[in-house]
């Protein structure tokens, strides 16, 4: 492709441009990710929120080039990344070898299940060591020394023993710390965390989140935090992306998300959170969102959320597809009726 390729604005670290991922399932085409665009700057934490099936995990995987193109999988769009070693690249267009240089080095990812994210047949030291030696030219002993330092910094008690242990001998929280150590071993500029605390209990959750925040302060690393837990989002994210049925439906600084959501779906999500200060507490059920996530092979006409939306209007919401429009500073929403409604005010 000749001509001027669009390039990153000076302060952006990563820019996703119209990402689309679709799979063939049986006889239909399923659009898992449908035109997602956003950018993230150094030192920033961006949360991607949505129910399961919203396409948030797929977006994360696609950003690492972990979704492989095949006869049944199609990816399009661009994921522009500023490399550590100067220059830019489009992750989706990299060759295998170049992609391997980016993964673990420029961008790292941690996953949801610490139980099965680590290879059961290798010791912790070997697995962290592998990550180090893939991108840095050091010997085995030096890699182990670096791994030890990493574990110490992450507050792992008795790090020497941890290095020689096997995954099944560690607790869930410890394993996740090891995963973080692996991810950070080559000082990536971006960390993608896919539900890293969902499988952990609440106290450990808090520790892990604290850890990530500390590291970010020290190194200026950007974090993309994928989760369905709005509580976590409120604690750590600067900006939030809300996804529904493969699309971004609201993009806003986190504070404003909680105070004044403009997308009915976001408001509904907030209402379904159990809250201690709610007068409706005694004897009332949680306000779950009626209906269920649309079948990805057969999305509804018009706005994909309209069948479940309290504010949908016949003729407007089930006709054309809404696009993302600006509804405030730094605030995008995908709704035709944003001017007329205040979904956050309903109580």
């Amino acid at each position, binding site marked *: 492709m000749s001509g001027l390729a669009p390039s990153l604005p000076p302060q952006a670290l990563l820019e996703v441009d119209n990402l689309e991922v679709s799979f063939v399932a049986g006889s239909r085409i399923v659009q898992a990710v449908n035109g997602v665009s956003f950018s993230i700057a150094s030192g920033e934490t961006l949360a991607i929120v949505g129910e399961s099936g919203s396409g948030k995990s797929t977006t994360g995987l696609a950003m690492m080039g*972990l979704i492989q193109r095949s006869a049944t999988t199609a990816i399009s769009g661009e994921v522009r990344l500023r490399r550590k070693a100067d220059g830019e690249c489009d992750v989706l267009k990299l060759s295998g070898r170049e992609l391997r240089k980016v*993964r*673990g080095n420029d961008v790292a990812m941690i*996953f949801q299940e610490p139980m*099965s*994210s680590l*290879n059961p*047949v290798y010791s912790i030291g070997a697995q962290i060591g592998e990550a180090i030696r893939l*991108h840095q030219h050091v010997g085995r002993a030096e890699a182990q020394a670096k791994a030890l330092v990493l574990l110490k910094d992450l507050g792992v008690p008795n790090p020497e023993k941890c290095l020689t242990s096997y995954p099944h001998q560690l607790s869930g929280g410890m394993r996740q710390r090891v995963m973080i150590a692996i991810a950070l071993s080559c000082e990536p500029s971006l960390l993608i965390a896919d539900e890293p605390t969902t499988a952990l209990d609440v106290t450990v959750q808090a520790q892990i989140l604290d850890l990530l925040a500390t590291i970010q302060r020290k190194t200026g690393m950007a974090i993309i935090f994928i989760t369905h837990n709005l509580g976590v989002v409120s604690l750590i994210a600067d900006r939030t992306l809300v996804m529904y049925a493969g699309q971004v439906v609201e993009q806003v600084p986190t504070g404003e998300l909680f105070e004044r959501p403009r997308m009915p779906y976001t408001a509904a999500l907030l209402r379904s959170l159990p809250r201690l200060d709610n007068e409706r507490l005694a004897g009332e059920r949680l306000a779950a969102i009626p209906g269920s996530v649309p079948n990805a092979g057969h999305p509804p006409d018009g706005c994909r959320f309209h069948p479940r939306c309290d504010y949908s209007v016949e003729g407007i919401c089930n006709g054309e597809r809404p696009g993302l429009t600006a509804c405030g500073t730094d605030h995008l929403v995908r709704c035709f009726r944003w001017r007329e409604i205040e979904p956050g005010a309903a109580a």
Partner: protein
Amino acid sequence: MLTLIIRRLLLAIPTILVLTVLLFFSVSTLLGTPSSMMLGEDASPQAIAELNALYGFDRPVTVQYVDWLHKALTGDLGRSFTTRDPVANSIASALPVTLELAFLAIGLAVLAAIVLNSLPSAQRIVRPLVVALNLAGIAMPNFVIGIVLIFVFSVNLGWLPSTGWVPWSAGIGTHLEHLILPVVTLSAYYFGAFSLVYRAELADAYTKLYIQTARAKGVSETGVAFRHALPNAVLPVITFAGLSMGQLVGGAVVTETVFSMPGIGRLFVGSIAGRDYPVMLAVGMLVVVGVVVMNLIADILYRVVNPQIRLG
């Protein structure tokens, strides 16, 4: 761990004893006296009785068994009826041949199954070929494979010899050259069986999250295949291989016959044809003991190699 091994060992001994007793008794009762076998059915009852007395076949079976066991433990397995050689000697010279054939065959089968099914690149070309070979190996009887190989490589192309054994003294090259066809023949079935198990384990391993973690670290597909998936998928294959060593004897019997190899298998077949009772019994016992021992080793090996069991 150690206590477990010892317990298994202690369990193995009575197992062997029970099996050898069963073998001895069934052979004795079903064969009538070996003397009638040796002399033929037309022999006079008197001649049979004389021979019985001479060999002690007229004693109660239990006594015969204890006597046999006692002698066997000291290395005296009697003399062959046909060649008059001590059975122990025949076995001692035949055993290494069979063991070499067996180990090479299993080794080849394991190696081929693992390597050929692990290669990530060119899977579209390699996999159907491997599956076809697997099916051929499982469906075609040993001897058919052997005969086809001989026909193609020996008779027609003249590349390889049609017998399976020359002693090491004839030179390592020649020795191994003669072994190629029999080893391939014997390993064919196991290549198929091991491939099936391995592919299933591999498919399961690839669904695990640690594969994704490895890719996210920047490991290449080949690295993922051989360093991450393989170690997790290979264990059941190894165990299966260990357990197959016992079954292998059956295959070895046929292979040694096709390729005229002086191993235990051919010794056994010869003893059957010649009604050579001591040899038959000795080889049968050997097989029984061998199978129990191999199972034991495979079981121990599995526990040792699997870190989850080893470290608890």
